[in-house]
């Protein structure tokens, strides 16, 4: 509506008007950085043990597994879909890896099984959503019960143990000094996802689909195919997370990773991804993961029980989302 200029004749339209530096300062990510610094500072004041290298290294285990899934989930949510079954996929992949252990499969085979199960579950979700045109929130509530239900059928109240020594590396190993394999994997994955979402045409198409799937389709984007790939990716990341968690715990119960789906989604939304689709960034999700890790770990050092930390996470989620809205209203009034 507001065509700001109206001089006649052809003229050169500038690429952009706002200063990129200024918009970076005002961005969501900047707000998250501030929050992260504040919590980091609070932690280091509150506990003398916080600033040690091993302590900081332990901190990363609090978020790496969930954050790996959050990377793919961010893409999925930006495209306008959601996957609530990721925690159940972790459980199913872990259960099938456990079965394979009983059959004497070695570490490489286990990893392959974990990833394949994740990918297959993601593809199953993707087929139901894009092939049959069903709402993803309901489909994945269904597959969530289905996948975890299969674990209960297989395991009952038993547990799989006896994972090989070499398998322990993925969830417990260190690449160098205090730098864990999980952290390295997460940083690598975050870089790849950042590149894919922000620097490739595939990423651009995800944003277009999330903002307007119909116009995207009319612009020649294969919407169904793109969404299917994203479901597969999310499943695959859940498979990777399953390998890490199973390796770290060294055992599989059907209740493994219970409730992770909501934590992953919290991470994504806190990271500034619109739950309605169409906007968000990988940097934001990484920062949100770090913040959640900091809160959990910091309060842990203070002997605050995990369940109370969840209050902070919940409050953080609502406050961080509500703040810009309230601020916007306040500014309009002034």
């Amino acid at each position, binding site marked *: 509506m507001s065509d700001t200029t109206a001089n006649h004749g*052809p003229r050169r339209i*500038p690429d952009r008007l706002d200063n990129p530096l200024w918009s970076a300062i005002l961005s969501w990510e900047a707000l998250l950085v501030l929050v992260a610094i504040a919590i980091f500072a609070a932690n280091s004041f509150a506990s003398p043990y916080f600033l040690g290298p091993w302590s900081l290294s332990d901190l990363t285990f609090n978020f790496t597994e969930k954050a790996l899934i959050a990377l793919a989930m961010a893409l999925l949510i930006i495209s306008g879909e959601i996957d609530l079954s990721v925690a159940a996929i972790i459980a199913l992949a872990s259960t099938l890896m456990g079965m394979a252990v009983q059959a004497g499969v070695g570490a490489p085979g286990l990893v392959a099984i974990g990833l394949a199960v994740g990918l297959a579950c993601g593809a199953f979700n993707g087929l139901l959503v894009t092939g049959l045109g069903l709402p993803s929130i309901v489909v994945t509530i269904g597959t969530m019960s289905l996948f975890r239900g299969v674990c209960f059928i297989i395991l009952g109240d038993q547990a799989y143990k006896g994972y090989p020594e070499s398998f322990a590396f993925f969830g417990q190993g260190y690449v160098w000094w205090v730098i864990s394999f999980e952290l390295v994997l997460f940083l690598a994955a975050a870089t790849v996802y950042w590149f894919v979402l922000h620097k490739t045409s595939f990423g*651009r198409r995800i944003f*277009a689909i999330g903002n307007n799937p119909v116009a995207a389709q009319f612009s020649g984007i294969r919407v169904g195919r793109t969404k299917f790939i994203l479901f597969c990716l999310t499943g695959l990341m859940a498979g990777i997370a399953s390998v890490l968690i199973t390796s770290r715990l060294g055992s599989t119960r059907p209740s493994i990773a219970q409730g992770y789906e909501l934590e992953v989604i919290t991470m994504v939304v806190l990271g500034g991804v619109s739950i309605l689709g169409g906007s968000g960034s990988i940097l934001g999700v990484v920062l949100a993961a770090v913040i959640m890790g900091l809160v959990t770990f910091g309060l842990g050092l203070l002997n605050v029980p995990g369940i109370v930390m969840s209050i902070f996470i919940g409050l953080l989620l609502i406050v961080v989302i509500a703040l810009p809205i309230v601020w916007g209203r306040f500014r309009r009034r002034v």
Partner: protein
Amino acid sequence: MLLDPHPARFAPDPPRKGEGTKPRLTLSGITKTFPGVRALHDVSLSLYPGQVTALIGENGAGKSTLVKILTGIYQPDAGEISVDGGPVSLPSAHAAFGHGITAIHQETVLFDDLSVAENIFLGHAPKTRFGTIDWKTMRAHAREVLATMHAGHIDADARLKDLGIANKHLVAVARAMSIDAQIVIMDEPTAALSAKEIEELFLLIEFLKSEGKAILFISHKFDEIFRIADRYTVFRDGEMVGEGLLADTTQSAIVRLMVGRAVDHIFPQREANIGARVLSVENLSHPTEFDGISFELRKGEILGFYGLVGAGRSELMHAIFGITKTSAGAITLEGRIIAPKSAADAIEAGIVYVPEERGKQGVVIGLPIFQNMSLPSLKRTSKSGVLRLKQEFDLARAYTERLDLRASSLSQDVGTLSGGNQQKIVIAKWLATAPKVIILDEPTKGIDIGSKAAVHGFMAELVAEGLSVIMVSSELPEILGMSDRVIVMREGRIAAEFDNKGLDAVTLVQSAAGIAA
């Protein structure tokens, strides 16, 4: 609250035309500003009981803002609204409702999954003595209201979803009757109706007039306005530029008021240079939307598709563009049979489509201009899947400058642009793919006059460069002014084909409506 069942009420009131009557509703000095846009400036409007006032103006003249103010959705920044001489305020839709103001909207905003009776009485349902909804009385009252409107054939228990568009209109009017609305706003009520349905609607409007309702009738169609309305008010760029009795004016006088200048030279003069066959469609059929469609399109040609809304033209174009599946037939492009299964296939083959529903299907609101522009060309602007922003900006700049886009920067969200500039982006986006055939569906619907001329001028340029254009349009002047040939569709089939030499509007209209010449 309900219609008075006393038969005396139904005798038509004596005509109350002329200046002597007191207005039922008066707006004066209404001003409404949105950030950066002055939607209405100091406008006035009066509606008289038993009369139809036509509100006329180009899209963007401020009509829909006015409707939203009248129905309590928007609040005016300044000005006064009075009903029956007393000033009122309309802070909410509910308040407007309470003052007897009701609107029947473009897309009949009703509730598809609720019953007819409930659609009529939602918000003011009859209650039992326990305060609960009295369904029995509600159904009975619904039947009563429908019967008084000669619409007794509509089942009060049917779901609205199962009714045709004309019957939905009847339900909307029944709703107006049930709240004893004195002021009825009809916002382009005929846009989606067939000729027969329009006749039925006019009977209904006559009925409302006889009931003494004051009616505001918004339409783009002059024949309708002159047939049904008593008075007119013309808006231009958010200002009231003229009003009076229709009997005292002429069509061309109103058009002059609307556009503020003569409109004779809108269409570019061009020498058609028509070459070989580019596209041929043979016996293309769809189970429910169209059947046995065959036509050819030649190089450098503009082929107009005329017909009433709902004749199946858009559905046919969607099929050629690969969005809708066909049941039979073949599409041949430059001698090669193509069977596009998706828009992506069609674009690859060289067929592109500028959709009618710009906001829903054309632009991706939320993305900046340059990203909208490069969307179908990402394969070219990126290198092995990696984006190259410079290429994207270059591409966007080249085409937007050619189309004389008005924007402050290429990183501006397309949602902040006017309809006309959004349309330029959709067209530019396609040109960047170097298509062979460009299909434009209602290319100037809802855009301002300046952009309209720009789009028409650009179409002429395109065909001069050897592109082939299919233009679906329901606007006669546009069809007559732009096309080399015209195909008329009626009820999913091709009704006639004309060479646009000495073609006149009457022939086209008769053909589209199925009336023998």
